[in-house]
């Protein structure tokens, strides 16, 4: 589903990604872990072209997304992204946050979009918040609304960038629950996370990134219990 070949990304002189190769299969959940500044966010942002790619190739379903001929907006509408700080639109109600994509991008009728939005809100447990504004929601509710917003575009892939790290500990569970449901339904997901429990339980594979490269990858069991690379060992010993 996603193939990343020799992906390089520099900000000016600073090379942040130094040749990433990765493959995500359909319905697979890949968790990305690694120390701060290792390039995890940048990697995700390259997959939906929020950053332009310096060199290399990212393919989603046969489309080379960084080919100038590819319609970037088309690509983005197929890749959902959930941000650490939610980035809900504060001037729109929860419902409007969700319908704007289908209506403006896909040209869906308001009514139809609303129906989908209400279904999604039910799915993430926010049926009663449709008409609320984001500022009145708790962090966990915001993040679930943001997930619903992404799902409304019916993406082929969902990218999550530390979706729970801005949340109070007691709110993390609800968000992870929603993500687990998604995984169970077969959504292809790439999740940058510090939630090792989630990675272990839901992840099909774990990628450990450090200094702009994938240092080690494998199934969660192996990475967490028997890491081979000394950098992985050091990182895990610090956080576990």
């Amino acid at each position, binding site marked *: 589903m996603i193939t990343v070949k020799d992906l390089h990304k520099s900000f000016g002189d600073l090379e942040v990604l130094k040749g990433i190769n990765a493959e995500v299969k359909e319905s697979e959940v890949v968790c990305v872990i690694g120390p701060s500044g290792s390039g995890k966010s940048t990697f995700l942002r390259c997959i939906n072209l929020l950053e332009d790619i310096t060199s290399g190739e990212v393919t989603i379903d046969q489309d080379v997304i960084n080919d100038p001929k590819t319609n970037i907006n088309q690509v983005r509408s197929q890749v959902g992204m959930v941000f650490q700080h939610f980035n809900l*639109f504060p001037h729109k109600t929860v419902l409007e946050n969700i319908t704007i994509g289908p209506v*403006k991008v896909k040209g869906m009728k308001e009514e139809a979009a609303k129906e989908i939005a209400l279904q999604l809100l039910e799915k993430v447990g926010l049926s009663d918040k449709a008409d609320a504004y984001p500022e009145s929601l708790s962090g966990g509710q915001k993040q679930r609304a943001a997930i619903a917003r992404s799902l409304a575009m019916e993406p082929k892939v969902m990218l999550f960038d530390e979706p729970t790290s801005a949340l109070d500990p007691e709110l993390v569970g609800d968000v992870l629950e929603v993500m687990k449901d998604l995984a169970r339904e077969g959504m292809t997901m790439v999740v940058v996370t510090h939630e090792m429990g989630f990675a272990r339980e839901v992840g099909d594979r774990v990628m450990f990134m450090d200094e702009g490269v994938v240092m080690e990858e494998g199934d969660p069991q192996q990475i967490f219990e028997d890491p081979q690379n000394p950098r992985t060992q050091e990182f895990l010993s610090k956080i576990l």
Partner: protein
Amino acid sequence: MLEALMDSAYIKSLPFLYEGLKLTLLITIVGLFLGFILGAFTGLGRLSKNGFIRGISTIFVEVVRGTPILVQVLFIYFGISEDLIGVNISGLTAAIIAITINAGAYIAEIVRGAVHSIDKGQYEAGRAVGLTERQTMRYIIWPQAFKRMIPPLGNQFIISLKDTSLFSVIAVGELVYQGRQYYNATFEVFETLVMVCIIYLMITIPTSVILRRVERKLDV
């Protein structure tokens, strides 16, 4: 006592000054309206990825903000229209153009600042949902930025309102011009100027009060 008041310039100048006030408001409102359109384009131009558009916008803003509005209106009225192109435009037209350009430059900075102050994550979320750059600007960034523009725009209204007084130099019959005409004929300078000030304050003070309320309500 009351009779004396009724007979003084305080009251008798009012019909005269009223004529001036109408022009003052006309110039301010039309000028600000056009200035907002100009400022919106220039302000967004300053944030453009296109270096040429950014350059032009920056030069416009810097030149206008770096020169006195009095010189600008003289330029428009005498320099450009009479001297350069050889057409005569009315003083009123020149005044409206001057406010448009001058307020436009300041509003460009207001627009730029407000748009710039919106969290970058908003733009990214818009793009991530699949909106184009334009749609993101129109539906996500602009509505949020516009809210933040309201207080400084109100401030600009007060500034531009007062700036119109300069147009008496090109014989536009706005408030100050009318006042001068009146006291030149009657020699009641003090009384007339007091009334002129009161009229300005009757607009500016309520505007400030409303602005402060709006500001508190918008919490910006």
